[in-house]
């Protein structure tokens, strides 16, 4: 559980809170992870590696078993504009979409969202918390939002 010791743990690689293997993430683009029993989802978006809470707020499906995809937008009736490819986490059950940058749902971004967490890579793994050089490691206990 990252806490007041989070920064130290992040700097000492052997103590990092590992989420998943980097090569596994690169191959699958979206993977499940668990930290202290808490379900997480790690994605490799074109913008970088992103870590989000892994339970869909709708009915509790595991977002890590969903897909990383794009979002269909439109400028006019009858138009399909597939954009933000690889940045959207889509729930494996009912298809709720979440922005991997913010954790916010695309259908109700103000009210429906999942927590996001900083991460870094070390030793071939994706680990929880900002890199040691940053201001400190936020962690599972300190979500940006819920």
């Amino acid at each position: 559980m990252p806490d007041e010791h989070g920064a130290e743990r992040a700097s000492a690689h052997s103590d990092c809170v590992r989420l998943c293997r980097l090569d596994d993430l690169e191959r699958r683009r979206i993977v499940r992870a668990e930290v202290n029993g808490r379900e997480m989802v790690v994605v490799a978006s074109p913008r970088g590696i992103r870590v989000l809470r892994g339970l869909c707020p709708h009915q509790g499906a595991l977002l890590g078993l969903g897909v990383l995809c794009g979002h269909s937008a439109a400028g006019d009736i009858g138009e399909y504009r597939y954009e933000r490819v690889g940045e959207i986490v889509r729930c494996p059950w009912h298809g709720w979409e979440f922005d991997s940058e913010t954790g916010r749902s695309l259908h109700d971004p103000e009210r429906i969202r999942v927590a996001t967490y900083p991460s870094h890579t070390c030793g071939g793994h994706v680990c929880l918390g900002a890199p040691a050089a940053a201001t400190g490691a936020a962690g599972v206990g300190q979500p940006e939002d819920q």
Partner: protein
Amino acid sequence: MPVTHDAAVVVDCDVHTGFQHGFTDVVPYLDPQWRHYVDLGKFSGPGRGSYTPWQGAHRMDSYTDDGRVGSSDYEHLRDHHLDTWSIDIAISTGDVTALSVCYMPQREFANAVASALNDHLIDTWLGRDSRILGSIVVAAQDVATSVAEIHRVGGHPRVCQVVLPTRSPLTGQWGDERYHPIWEAAIEEGLAIGFHTTAAGGNTLPPLPTGWPRTYMELTSAYAIPAQAELLGLVLRGVFEKFPALRVVMIETGFAWLPSLMWRMDKRWRELQSEVPWLTRLPSEYILDQVRLTTQPMEEPPKPGALAQVIEMMGSENLLMFATDYPHWDFDSPTRALPSELGADTRRRILGENAVEFYRLDKQVEQVRAEQATPAPAATADRSSRSDVR
């Protein structure tokens, strides 16, 4: 780790059991005449429509490790669904494409396919696990053969229902007299009639009176419309009056619309009953006694407490029966779909008690409980451990 429920019994009233290799699994159950027809014609099964949800028809997380869809084999259904969610009884409605035998224009072939599907269901799924009950299909456009089929396989101890598509065949609406022998046969075999939503009329009938929906979203948001129209016909044309022992389940049609339909029918009955003098009771009373509705896909009003009001408006908390629709994409979670605002008693009724009463499942539940309490051989170890966590 299986979930635990505060309900005494959990019945899933809409589970789809399918095939390992698609319709080819069913082919051995066809007569040589039709096997030949399927082989040469490359027939891939009834009802392959062109509507599909964005991510496919199945839950993304329901696939087996080797890429087959959920419910393609018994072991996967057992591990991934029945054990995981502590389901006591699962009522299979078969592979959803099977319902479209009712829309096949060549009725002799439709009858053969229906029989083969039923034999495949019995051989592959029923008898494997006391928790699984089945629904048989018939090609209802041929009433006489449907009756014979119901008597041929309907007496199987694990068959509890005849399942038909909500949208009636080209031969006429479900309320019509021509189908009376089917209802009679189902009653004689002790079976309920389930009307399950279908994606379309096998490309022969538009699923809505307005024609063809353009998107899957348009189609599925309107599932209640054919259900309401057919239910009106069943009530007002006197089917329930003539067959008081008939039990009908509307499956995957939504339910929040029911109070409005009952009020409207009752109002018109007071005004226009001379048009339907054969009805001896308020139309809503037939529904309260003889019709039940499954919950999935769950209605999700902005304020979940509104669902309690809907049930109050129905005039009975006995009408709704829980369903997951496993392994389809819009699966409802047994622990999350029913909001706490419904109250513990109502949730218990919906999760299992209503279905036990309506489908008359006391003996099946008794058998499941007895097996759970028995020290299990290796093959049933999971179910034995499940009883420990209750």
